[in-house]
């Protein structure tokens, strides 16, 4: 750690850890409900509550992780302290408060009921204020800094666009079709667009630090990757528009450009692996390297390959609105965003606390168990999804009859989720064992 103000990142990461664990709890609530144990239904947690909490906690823990990453990376890249640390803590507390109010509200039927954007409108405005404060702190720090690196610019651009793209989701529409159309401007352009900029920025920072490869080389390829992301991802939004009641032009445009989307993820995976091979391999924090390379590779499989598996209009006609989407979504979010947040935490935590726990076997077990568990969950969702498509969409069986047939796959899902959760618990224990950040860690040069 080079600047005292980087310590604020720790508390954003701590919030991420807390919300991640809570997200898993609600995931289990849903898994058990699917095999018939929905006893919490009467106790105020029906499936729709569990699902809204599960997906919203995912978004908030990732955003908190991205914000923590920015608070850690930007001072180091700009070579100066954060402009106002107290305001960063205000921003953290207000983010946590908005999250808590939203999650509690979901248990009392207080929501908007729009997939992924369930946060009620009044809280939306608080989110906007919170994000503006965050962006203000980051951008002013960058502006006043001694240097403006490509890594910092790409990361900041991703965060800025993410904030701007939140706004179309707040537009009110009378038509379900228009509502859905612009909801994807937020959801798709976040996860298959600007969040990839954030991921690319964090990945670039980590590769520069961990491999020792020249910054100019890494940042040049960063531009190529984010260029490919937008070139395919923006018009790739069309794959959400095939069957929601808009013009057939999207079948062609969405089909072509979403088929190109895996290229960006392939480029990212090749980029990360090549930089590692070129590098000096001297950095002692191998655990951070595991998570960094893992994020690049798993995101290619989850977001790239599994996305491609059902993105063509001919296939999507049958898979649209089935568990096949859940299969792709789980590995994609985990690989692209979950793992990159855990990578920056694994890298920065020893630097902020001064404790080098990255040689312990607990950290490696956390990496392997969580990844093996998530791959198992993906397979379980995939099998359930294919069975659902065949029985319901091809053979014409009733929805609930098919659900009964797929229950066994959810037993497997719960078992794999238990392995995944064991990995995450080990990661959280590791996080806790590092202790709190300290100014004494400033003396330790690890880069």
């Amino acid at each position: 750690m080079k600047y005292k103000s980087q310590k604020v990142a720790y508390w954003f990461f701590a919030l991420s850890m807390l919300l991640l664990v809570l997200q898993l709890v609600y995931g289990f609530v849903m898994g058990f409900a699917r095999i018939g144990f929905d006893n919490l239904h009467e106790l105020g947690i029906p499936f729709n509550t569990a699902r809204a909490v599960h997906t919203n906690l995912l978004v908030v823990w990732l955003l908190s992780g991205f914000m923590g990453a920015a608070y850690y990376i930007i001072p180091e890249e700009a070579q100066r302290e954060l402009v106002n640390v107290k305001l960063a803590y205000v921003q953290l507390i207000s983010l946590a408060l908005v999250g808590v109010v939203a999650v509690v509200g979901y248990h009392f039927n207080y929501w908007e009921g729009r997939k992924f954007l369930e946060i009620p409108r009044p809280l939306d405005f608080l989110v906007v204020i919170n994000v503006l404060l965050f962006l203000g702190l980051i951008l002013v720090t960058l502006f006043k800094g001694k240097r403006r690196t490509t890594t910092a610019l790409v990361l900041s651009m991703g965060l800025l666009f993410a904030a701007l793209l939140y706004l179309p989701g707040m537009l009110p529409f009378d038509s379900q079709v228009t509502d859905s159309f612009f909801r994807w401007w937020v959801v798709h352009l976040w996860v298959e667009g600007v969040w990839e900029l954030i991921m690319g920025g964090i990945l670039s920072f980590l590769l520069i630090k961990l491999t020792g490869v020249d910054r100019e080389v890494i940042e040049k390829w960063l531009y190529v990757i984010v260029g490919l992301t937008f070139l395919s991802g923006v018009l790739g939004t069309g794959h959400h528009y095939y069957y929601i009641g808009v013009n057939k032009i999207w079948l062609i445009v969405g089909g072509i450009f979403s088929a190109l989307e895996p290229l960006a993820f392939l480029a990212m995976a090749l980029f990360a692996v090549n930089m590692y091979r070129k590098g000096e391999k001297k950095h002692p924090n191998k655990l951070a390297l595991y998570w960094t390379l893992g994020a690049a590779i798993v995101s290619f499989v989850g977001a790239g390959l599994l996305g491609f598996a059902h993105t063509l209009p001919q296939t999507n006609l049958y898979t649209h609105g089935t568990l096949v989407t859940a299969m792709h979504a789980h590995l994609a979010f985990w690989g692209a965003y979950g793992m990159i947040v855990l990578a920056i935490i694994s890298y920065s935590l020893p630097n902020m606390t001064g404790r080098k726990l990255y040689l312990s076997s607990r950290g490696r077990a956390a990496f392997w168990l969580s990844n093996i568990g998530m791959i198992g969950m993906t397979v379980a969702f995939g099998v359930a999804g294919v069975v659902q498509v065949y029985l319901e969409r091809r053979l014409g069986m009733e929805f609930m009859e098919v659900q009964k047939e797929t229950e066994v796959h959810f037993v497997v899902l719960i078992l794999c989720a238990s392995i995944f959760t064991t990995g995450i618990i080990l990661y959280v224990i590791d996080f806790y064992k590092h202790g709190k950040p300290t100014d004494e860690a400033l003396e330790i040069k690890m880069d």
Partner: protein
Amino acid sequence: MLSKKQARAFFLGGTLVTFLIFIGLTIYSFSVENDQSNHENITEAVVRGKKIWESNNCMGCHTILGEGAYYAPELTKVVDRLNMKYEGQGEEVIKSILMSPASWQPNGRKMVAYEMTAEEAADMVEFFKWIGEIDLNGFDRIVSPLAKEENNN
């Protein structure tokens, strides 16, 4: 060999061009002659139905237009489907489920008992009927019971 400057130009140029095309296609697909969203048939009851749909987070279990949570049935063609199952009484069945004080539990999977008023339930039915008439580029045939009959024959 590609320089950093060229890479940046590729990123900025590609992003700008694709965003402009995207906005152009959005305008194109919502223009009057290309719109197929059944917008002209949206009534006040449909709008009220949509609000009830959202305020109860129905999408948190069901899917509509193929979007939702895959825990409960797709409702895009729910009126047609229940009409077939209950001999033309689809609308009445939907209303009774929504107005019931007891939880609807097909095959043991529970739905929240919303205890809607008759007016609210009627608005929901209008919303479903409006949704059922949207041109979904062939997806309606996949989720429609009539199409399933055709597939099986």
